[in-house]
């Protein structure tokens, strides 16, 4: 029985990144991308799905994330161990520079991968939390386009928050 299951051909899908790199992914991974799942269900996922706004660098990471989550969830381990494993993986996975994190967040939103979207948003928030405004500006290259007078006015409006 088990050998026949192994021999069953696994369904694969081809995802093409913005820069033309084609990734082959198994169905269990592809369906985690809600946008792709809908195309697969509508039988519109052939010959490949072009993802014009995700670079190969980011798509590779997204696939790595979905693959790990798909394998852990179907691995037959207990829910507690699987949860712990995913937590450790997620923490390590988020250990990337801010720009990659932002692109991952954007890609997760576009590809509609809820868990990755939550994870990246939460991580980005943790980078903002407890940092001064100057540090946050520097971290994300935010240019302060307020004039001195304008910034002073905003600070005055919410003096409580800036003490």
């Amino acid at each position, binding site marked *: 029985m088990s050998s026949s299951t192994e021999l069953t051909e696994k369904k694969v899908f081809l995802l093409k990144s*913005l820069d033309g790199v084609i990734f082959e992914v198994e169905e269990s991974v592809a369906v985690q991308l809600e*946008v792709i799942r*809908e*195309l697969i269900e*509508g*039988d*519109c996922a*052939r*010959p*490949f*799905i*072009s*993802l*014009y*706004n995700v*670079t190969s660098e980011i798509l590779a990471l997204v696939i790595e994330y979905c693959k790990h989550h798909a394998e852990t969830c179907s691995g037959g381990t207990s829910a507690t161990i699987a949860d712990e494993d995913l937590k450790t993986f997620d923490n390590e996975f988020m250990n990337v520079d*801010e*720009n990659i994190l*932002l*692109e991952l*967040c*954007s890609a997760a*939103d*576009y590809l509609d991968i809820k868990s990755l*979207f939550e994870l990246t*948003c*939460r991580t*980005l*928030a*943790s980078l*903002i*939390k*407890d940092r001064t*405004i100057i540090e*946050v*500006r520097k971290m*994300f*290259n*935010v*240019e*302060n*386009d*307020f004039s001195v007078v304008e*910034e002073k006015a*905003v*600070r005055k*409006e*919410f*003096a*409580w*928050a*800036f*003490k």
Partner: protein
Amino acid sequence: MQCQFWKVGEHQNLFMANLIVLKSEEQQRLSKLKKEDRREDLISILPNAILQHILSFLPTKDIIRTSILCKRWKNLWTSISNIDLWDSIDITKSDYLKRRASFLDSVERILLQHDDSNIERLRLSFKMPVNPTHVYSWISVAIKHNIRKLDVSLPLGCIYSLPCDLFTCESLTELRLYMACFFNPSLIHWPNLKELHLSQVTIFNRSSTQFFSSIPLLQNLVLVNCEWENIRRLSISVPNLRCLIFKQCSDPEDLLDCEIVVRVSNLVYLNCISNFSVNLLVSAC
């Protein structure tokens, strides 16, 4: 390109795929820009919905502070759905009054300048005395924004009044009031309320049976030092109630002859400290 492989008639799927292509053209341009300059501000170009979701993980004070990052961020705070405000001002400090005024001014701004979006949760937890008129208007704002979870905790020493609309607020799922106030509405209608915590609340002119029948989905009930005017028999008969905490440690004189009857069929937790007898009937309501 891949459209040629699709069967005629799959309009919905074609539409979806086209949507991806259309969205992509703009994104392609953005990605190109991103590649050209990795030092570009990549966070401010995110759509409002994403930025607001990132902000939702931050405490309210930190959200407000992001308003001076740059002009793009200036008004993002006006649509935050979770507002959590508490005072942590040291009363012994010389500038206490100034800080207090500045804090209350911010609370007023945050609530009154909120945009049209819903407020999911509002928590106001103050140790400092607050003008009851302000509290009334803040709760009114929350109701107008279809508040789901309202949690107000205010110091004793003042009686607060509540807007009538609160008692018919259908969006409410959780209500926690730790403040001296009166419940005296002509109608109570909380069809979605599952959690109710009341402390120091006085309930007027309403039989307890009538009161609890207005909250059909109630699961968790906490009553601490509440008064039921002109009620001698307090009957808590709630079919879905799972958790009941009842504490009555205040002056028992008014309630000397009072009897509490609890009729429940799904209770899993009960904590009762009372100066008078409690009749617990675990039965179908």
